[in-house]
């Protein structure tokens, strides 16, 4: 074989392999999502949302407590995490713009975004569960909010940095103090981006299991009480999937389906907004 042909062959083989890699990646996605879809839809039933768990063997149990618990914990985590994240990001992008402090904090935030979430769970256990003496929904919400803060902080910083500086100068020229410029001009310009960051951070924490296992724990009964243990979908999925009963497994699949659907929709929505807003 001459050299020309060999080079061409090599190229075809290498690029075919890369196509294969992409196909394999897509294959896993379809396999996992398809599996969750098939098992999950089969097990979906109105009872799942309307009833609380019943002892195994009795028909008609549901996971109402876990759905409500998950919403409670995620909502409170958002209420705690988002303001801190947005305000922190504001400081980095505005008052501390281009300082070493801002650079260090955003690098550290990037690092703790990926710190194992189970470590956060043990941290909150030592901080909020053991001293009080019992598991609580608040501890779960705080654990999730700690995961949210760096995510929201970094997106806010990026989004605010994208607002043109001249816009601020225009507002300064009218005599507005900086805080007013930030709140009335910069936030308005970056609102879509920040909102998207919040959506994506909710998607990120809604599927977290590890930080909840030692904090909000689990609860077989319906409860609004954030001072006591609160059930969450993810911890319930873990418990039910590891359990011995077929009916538990079916409910775990159904819950997985609902939570996956919710998270994927949030993620896709977030990405679409970003694409639509920042089309260059």
């Amino acid at each position, binding site marked *: 074989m001459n050299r020309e042909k060999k080079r061409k062959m090599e190229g075809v083989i290498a690029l075919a392999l890369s196509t294969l890699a992409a196909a394999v990646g897509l294959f896993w*996605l379809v396999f996992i999502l398809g599996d969750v879809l098939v098992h999950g839809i089969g097990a979906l039933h109105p009872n799942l949302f309307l009833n609380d768990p019943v002892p195994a063997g009795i028909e008609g149990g549901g996971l109402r407590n876990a759905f409500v618990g998950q919403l409670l914990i995620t909502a409170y985590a958002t209420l705690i995490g988002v303001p801190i994240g947005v305000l922190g990001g504001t400081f980095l992008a505005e008052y501390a713009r281009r300082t070493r402090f801002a650079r260090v904090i955003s690098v550290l935030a990037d690092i703790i975004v990926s710190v194992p*979430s189970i470590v956060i769970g043990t941290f909150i256990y030592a*901080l909020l569960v053991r001293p009080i003496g019992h598991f609580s929904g608040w501890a779960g919400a705080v654990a999730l909010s700690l995961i949210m803060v760096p995510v929201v902080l970094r997106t806010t910083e990026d989004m605010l940095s994208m607002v043109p500086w001249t816009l601020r100068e225009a507002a300064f020229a009218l005599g507005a103090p900086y805080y007013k410029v930030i709140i009335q001009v910069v936030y308005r310009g970056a609102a879509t981006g920040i909102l998207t960051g919040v959506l994506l951070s909710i998607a990120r924490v809604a599927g977290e299991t590890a930080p909840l296992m030692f904090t909000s724990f689990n609860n077989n009964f319906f409860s609004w009480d954030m001072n006591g243990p609160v059930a969450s979908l993810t911890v319930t999925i873990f418990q039910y999937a590891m359990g011995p009963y077929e009916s538990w497994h079916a409910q775990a699949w159904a819950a997985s389906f609902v939570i996956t659907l919710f998270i994927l929709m949030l993620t896709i929505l977030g990405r679409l907004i970003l694409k639509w807003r920042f089309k260059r």
Partner: protein
Amino acid sequence: MPKKNPLDLTFSLVTGVASFSIIVIIIGIFWVLVRESSPAINKFGIMRFLTSTEWDPVKEAFGAATSIYGTFVTTTLALVIAVPAAIGIAIFVTEVAPNFLKGPIGMAIELLAAIPSIIYGMWGLFTLAPLMSRYIEPALQGTVGRLPMLAFLFRGTPLGIDILTASIILSIMIIPFTASIARDSFNLTPPMVKESAYAVGATQWEVVKNVVLPYSKLGVFGGVVLSLGRALGETMAVAFVLGNNHRIATSLFDAAATITVTLANEFTEADKDIYLSSLFYLALVLFVLSFITLALAKLFLIRAERKFSR
């Protein structure tokens, strides 16, 4: 700059405190974990804890070696599987795919990253593990397992709840991280340089191999280290399919334990103070390990970016 007024000062203080929360979180985690694990640190020391393979709640003797070993083996294996696939995907998305496919395929791969890890775990337990134990693992035993050099890797009854299954799930989870960072690094290659290579007659693959890859190697390497950092701390995806077996396993078909799996299974069951303290010690080891790994990854990525902004 407008002159300071009191409300402005207040707002800057409030936002400053909020941004400081990042440092508070990091130092807080480290300090609390050290405080909680100090009984175990005092009792077992540092080197002895890290190297002892004993994990016996009854005798109250704890060592981290089995968990660290499990973490190391599963993440290494996962990286070995994931990195070539991820680079292949990145090459496909940046170079091979027609334009109308680039967006959707990139998005699909990123959706893999959005699926919560507990879903991976459940899928692994109910779908992948039976497939592994019924078809793939016996097939491996019958072929590569016959080679005398490699037989020790494939010993034992293939149950599907083992290191190999856990590593495969872990590799599927980290492919998207590696692939999307590799893609971003590839895209940083100046088009001018690529076009020059095409102009002297290079094939598409030669451009990738001799121009794009050398240009982006720092970024790709950063992405790989970042994936390693993520894989170290992954809990739910492996908790379902690894068993929780504290021993140094040599076969890919053995159950094992990672730091995260040990924590997930034993943390709420620890009945003695020294037991709980040892678990906090494990969490501390994991925190330090992943923090260093992630910091290194960030360092590489920053360097890679700087190279191009010049």
